[in-house]
C-alpha cells in the first residue's frame, strides 16, 4: 500500500486536523465525535444542511462545507458510514433555529445511522427532515437490492440546496427541493483500477491490466460487470446511455413525516430524460485518473447529449466525489430548470467548490 499517511487508523483524524489548520476561515472541526462545520455556524434563522458518509470521497463532504453549501459534515472512517452521535452533535452545533436537513446517500449504513440520528435530534427538540439521494443507474431495480446508491447527484444537491438555504427557503421547501434534485439526477460510474482502504492495506479487488469495472459505486466495491478495457469514447457512451436511456425508476423510500411525527414510506418516481431537456453535465474523476483525461470524456459526452437532444447548460468536471485513488470516472446528468440554474450559479465558498465570492 502506497499512501501519504502515517498510521492507517489515524488517516481520518489527521486529515481533519489538516483541514482545520488549512481553512480556518471556511470550516471548523470538532473531534470526538468528529464533524466539520461552517466557521460561522450557527447561521441564525437559516436552515442548517448536514450531510455525511464514509471518508475517502474527498472533497465530499467536509470539503463542501461553507457559505452556500453544507453547514455540517460527518465523516466516518474510510468508506464506513459515520455514527448517529456525530450527526446528532453536528445538528446541535449548526442549527440556527430553523431546523436541520439531513442529506443522506442511500447506503444501508448511512440510512440507518441517519435515521437513528434524526430520531435522537427530534427527541432533543430539533426539527429535522431527511432526504435520500439514490441516483445510480447501475442499480436497475429496488425490489431485489437496497435500491439505487447515492452518488454524483449528492454533490449537485448539496450545492443547489445549499444555495436555497442561503436564500431563505424553509425546511419543508428545502426538503422538497432536495427531493426534486434527486429524482432529476442520474449517475453511472466505472473503474479502471481498484483502490486500497488504508486499514485493509490491500486493493479491494484485482483488476487485470486489460479489464475494467462498469457500474461501480464509490466504495471501491466491484461494479455490475467486468469487461475488457475500452476507449474513452466507448466508455463515455456506455455511461451516458445508461443514464439517458434509463426508463422511469420508482421505489419506496422512508422519509420523516413531520405531521405524523414518524417515518413513513414514500413512493418516488424519477422521470426519464427526454429530448429538449436542459441538463447539467457532471464528469467526476474517481480520484486517481490524470486530469488530462476528463475533458476527453466531456468531449464525447457533449456529442452524445447533442445527438440525444439534451442541451448541456452547465457543467462540473473534476474530482468531487472520489473513491480514494481509484482511476475511473462517473457521469451525472441533472435536468435543470430556471430555479435550479439560479441556485447553481449562486455564490459558494467551500474548500472543494468555489465561485462568485
Amino acid at each position, binding site marked *: 500500500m502506497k499512501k501519504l499517511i502515517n498510521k492507517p487508523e489515524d488517516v481520518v483524524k489527521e486529515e481533519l486536523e489538516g483541514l482545520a489548520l488549512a481553512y480556518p476561515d471556511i470550516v471548523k472541526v470538532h473531534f470526538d465525535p468528529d464533524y466539520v462545520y461552517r466557521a460561522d455556524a450557527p447561521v441564525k434563522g437559516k436552515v442548517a444542511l448536514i450531510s455525511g458518509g464514509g471518508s475517502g470521497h474527498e472533497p465530499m463532504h467536509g470539503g463542501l462545507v461553507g457559505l452556500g453549501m453544507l453547514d455540517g459534515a460527518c465523516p466516518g*472512517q474510510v468508506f464506513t*458510514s459515520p455514527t448517529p452521535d456525530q450527526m446528532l452533535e453536528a445538528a446541535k452545533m449548526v442549527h440556527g433555529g430553523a431546523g436541520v436537513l439531513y442529506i443522506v446517500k442511500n447506503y444501508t449504513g448511512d440510512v*440507518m445511522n441517519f*435515521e*437513528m440520528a434524526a430520531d435522537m435530534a427530534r427527541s432533543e427538540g430539533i426539527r429535522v427532515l431527511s432526504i435520500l439521494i439514490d441516483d445510480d443507474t447501475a442499480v436497475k431495480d429496488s425490489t431485489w*437490492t*437496497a435500491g439505487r446508491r447515492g452518488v454524483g447527484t449528492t454533490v449537485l444537491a448539496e450545492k443547489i440546496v445549499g444555495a436555497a438555504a442561503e436564500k431563505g427557503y424553509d425546511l419543508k421547501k428545502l426538503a422538497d427541493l432536495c427531493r426534486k434534485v434527486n429524482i432529476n439526477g442520474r449517475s453511472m460510474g466505472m473503474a479502471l483500477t481498484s483502490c486500497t482502504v488504508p486499514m485493509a492495506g490491500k486493493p479491494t479487488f484485482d483488476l487485470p491490466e486489460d479489464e475494467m469495472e462498469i457500474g461501480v459505486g464509490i466504495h471501491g466495491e466491484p461494479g*455490475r460487470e467486468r469487461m475488457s478495457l475500452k476507449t474513452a469514447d466507448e466508455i463515455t457512451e456506455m455511461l451516458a446511455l445508461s443514464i439517458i436511456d434509463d426508463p422511469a425508476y420508482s421505489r419506496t423510500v422512508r422519509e420523516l413525516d413531520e405531521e405524523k411525527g414518524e417515518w413513513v414510506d414514500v413512493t418516488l418516481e424519477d422521470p426519464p430524460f427526454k429530448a429538449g431537456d436542459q441538463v447539467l453535465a457532471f464528469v467526476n474523476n474517481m480520484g486517481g485518473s490524470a486530469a488530462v483525461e476528463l475533458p476527453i470524456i466531456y468531449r464525447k459526452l457533449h456529442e452524445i447529449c447533442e445527438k440525444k437532444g439534451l442541451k448541456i447548460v452547465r457543467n462540473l468536471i473534476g474530482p468531487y466525489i472520489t473513491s480514494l485513488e481509484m482511476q475511473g470516472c462517473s457521469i451525472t446528468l441533472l435536468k435543470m430548470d430556471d430555479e435550479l440554474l439560479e441556485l447553481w450559479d449562486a455564490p459558494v465558498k467551500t474548500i472543494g467548490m468555489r465561485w462568485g465570492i
Partner: protein
Amino acid sequence: MAITTVDVLNCLRQMADVIHENKEYLTDLDSAIGDADHGINMDRGFQAILKKLPSVEDKDAGTILKTAGMALVSSVGGAAGPLYGTAFMQAGMAIAGKYELEAEDLLAILDAALKGVIMRGRANLADKTMVDAITPAVNVIREALGNGAGTVEVLEQAAAAAKKGMKDTIPMLAKKGRASYLGERSIGHQDPGATSSYLLINTMAEMARVKE
C-alpha cells in the same frame, strides 16, 4: 447452571478477542461482496465495548448489554453499527434488571436481538445478511428449550445452527446491504455479517462450555 454478570462481562471480552482475531477474515469476506471494512468496523466496535465495560461491572446484565449496544452504535458506523447496536440494546432491554440468566433468558436475548436487527434493517430470510445466521439460532433455541435442554446444550445447538445459516448464505443472491449491488456476482460468497453473527453466538457457546 445460571449465567452471572461476570460471565456476561467475560463473554463480551471473549467476543472482542474473537472479532479481533477474525478482523482480517471478515474484511476479506467483505472485500469480495462489499467494501472491505466489516472486520475493521467490528473490531473498532468491540474495542469500544471493552473501554466501556469497567463502568458497568457492578450493573445488571441488561444494563451491560445495553451499554455494549450503545458503544457499538457510536463507534462502528456502517451497516453493522446500527444493526448490532440495536441488537445488543434490544437484548439488554429483554433482560433488564437481571443479575442471573437462565436458559430461557438466552432465548429472550437472541430473539430480541434478531427482532432489533429486522426492525432496523428490514431484511428477510435469504437476503444474505446476518439475519440468516441469527434466525436459525433463535429457532433452534426455542425448540431445544421446549425439549428441556440446558444452557450449554441450547447454546451449542444455536452455534451449530448459526454456522449452518452462515454457510447457507454462500449460494444466496444478496438482496440487502452493499452486496445486493453485485447482483448475480454476490452468489458464491459467504456473507460477512452472517459470519460475524456466527462468531458471536459461537463465543457464547464456548463460554458456557468452559464454565460447565
